[in-house]
């Protein structure tokens, strides 16, 4: 059976994963933590996506940063990260030794932030690709998310494209009125693949204290609660772009992952589910293999997007 998937078929070097199961940005640190734990063999993953990285280190938001909601998790971490310089200095040398490709998730507040990040990471050994998080507020445009409209999403993609020769995934935000148009714009602007979805904006209130639970007032919703939304967005986007799509949002079981692949995803990312079950990735991978065996499927590509409109 062939589990490998190509995420950047239009890129000269490509981005070939040994299997379609990846980690989701911000839920797996830098991948280096789990190595110290000897919990499972990280090399068995399709790819590792690291914590969202900014030009300068970020301290993140006030506590509380997490709150469990019905079938979901609200987080307002605030992009706490060590910054691009420390990432290149401390993490990339570890990644060089890995077989599993590492994709660096980047985040900025201006177009030039994104361009600078892409430039700094270009050619750094140990990095196989970039994932561009466009769910960040565009400071110069009054704080609206870059990903909220096709023009600004395309502008970020172009800026990154120009600055790096690495394969780029652009990660779409669900907080937009028309995700298909954003996806098409991003694809035309030179993205090698599209990943989706990032968290949905949400909120929880402590009725005894009469204030928002999260220190940052609002946060991003993840987990099973967002799965149907994510699935339909993957389905929609896969129908309008001709580049690979990576599905993410509430994936907890192999069945969930297979649903996303059938909706059109070439690979999946798992985040929240790994908190309760740190080795969930391998459980999902095993489940996909069993499914393929039972159904007589020889290659993952045989069932990518089989559910189509």
């Amino acid at each position, binding site marked *: 059976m062939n589990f490998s998937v190509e995420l950047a078929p239009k890129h000269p070097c490509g981005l070939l994963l040994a299997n379609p199961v990846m980690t989701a940005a911000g*839920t797996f640190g830098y991948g280096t*933590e*789990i190595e110290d734990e000897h*919990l499972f063999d990280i090399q068995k993953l399709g790819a590792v996506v690291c914590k969202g990285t900014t030009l300068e280190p970020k301290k993140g938001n006030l506590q509380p940063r997490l709150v469990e909601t019905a079938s979901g998790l609200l987080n307002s*971490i605030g992009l706490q990260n060590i910054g691009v310089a420390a990432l290149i200095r401390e993490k990339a040398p570890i990644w060089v030794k890995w077989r599993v490709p590492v994709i660096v998730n980047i985040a900025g507040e201006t177009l030039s932030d994104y361009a600078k990040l892409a430039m700094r990471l270009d050619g750094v050994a140990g990095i196989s690709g970039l994932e561009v998080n466009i769910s960040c507020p565009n400071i110069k445009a009054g704080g609206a998310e870059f990903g909220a409209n096709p023009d600004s999403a395309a502008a970020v993609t172009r800026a990154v494209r120009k600055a790096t020769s690495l394969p780029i995934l652009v990660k779409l935000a669900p907080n937009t009125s028309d995700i298909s148009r954003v996806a098409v714009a991003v694809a035309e602007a030179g993205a090698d693949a599209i990943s989706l979805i990032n968290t949905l904006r949400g909120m929880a209130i402590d009725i005894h204290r009469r204030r928002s639970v999260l220190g940052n007032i609002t946060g991003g919703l993840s987990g099973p609660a967002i799965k149907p939304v994510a699935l339909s967005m993957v389905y929609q986007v896969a129908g309008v772009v001709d580049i690979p799509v990576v599905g993410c949002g509430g994936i907890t079981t192999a069945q969930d992952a297979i649903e996303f692949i059938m909706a059109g995803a070439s690979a999946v990312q798992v985040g929240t589910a790994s*908190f*309760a079950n*740190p080795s969930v990735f391998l459980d999902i991978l095993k489940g996909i293999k069993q499914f393929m065996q039972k159904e007589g499927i020889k290659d993952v590509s045989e069932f990518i997007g089989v559910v189509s409109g």
Partner: protein
Amino acid sequence: MKQIIAKVISNTRILKELERRRALKRPQPRDVLGSYLLWLDCPELTPKAKPGQFVMVRCGGKTILPRPFSIHQVNNKGNIALFFAVWEDGKGTNWLSQRHIGSKVELFGPLGVDFSIRSDSRNLLLVAGGIGIAPLYFLAQEAVKKTRSVTLLLGAATASQIYPKNLLPSRIKTVITTEDGSAGKKGRVIDLVPEFIDRADQVFACGPIPMYREMYLQRRKFLKNKPTQVSLETVMGCGRGVCYGCTIKTKKGLQEICRDGPIFDLDDIM
């Protein structure tokens, strides 16, 4: 760290429900429905477990996040005990309290940093507010093994919330206080500290943040500059240092409670 499925050896309610609103005469958003002593068979975990460390328990039911619990006791048969309060509408703790003998519980650990007993500390003072006895019990056991002399100050709202005397660790001195005076001395556990501090070489505390704050603000009275370690709590996502959900500011910079803690020097966090 290991991720395992552990068999429940016993799960007993050892403290009954606390009607806090009545007992404390001040508004409490949530009541405690009882506190349980849960013994789990996990020989994979016990060799590495140290006092102050915790485990993350996947609680099933409608929970999404695993729940952190201190390692309360370890025995030489490869078992660990958790001691946990069940919160009114607490999804995870209610689920956990309903696990019967022989059922399976998924968990991973041991996690975090342990309490550290200095090599020159002879006399240890342990200060437990309410459920705060959870990690201090294990510490007391280990300290006794290392031939230290241990005094445990144990405080609770009312007599029904005091850890059963027959279950307390042996070979330590225990002093009890209750806020309503229904058992031991009347008052808060922290008010007992000055009486015992002179003899102590090191202090270890587990209780609510306001207790730590008061200890720190009046450290001359309470602590007389004795080195003090405390256990901190926040909501946790991963428990393994990968989500940054539990980050706090300390004098040493940003730290993750799950990885750089949960045990901290009191001076560093205030």
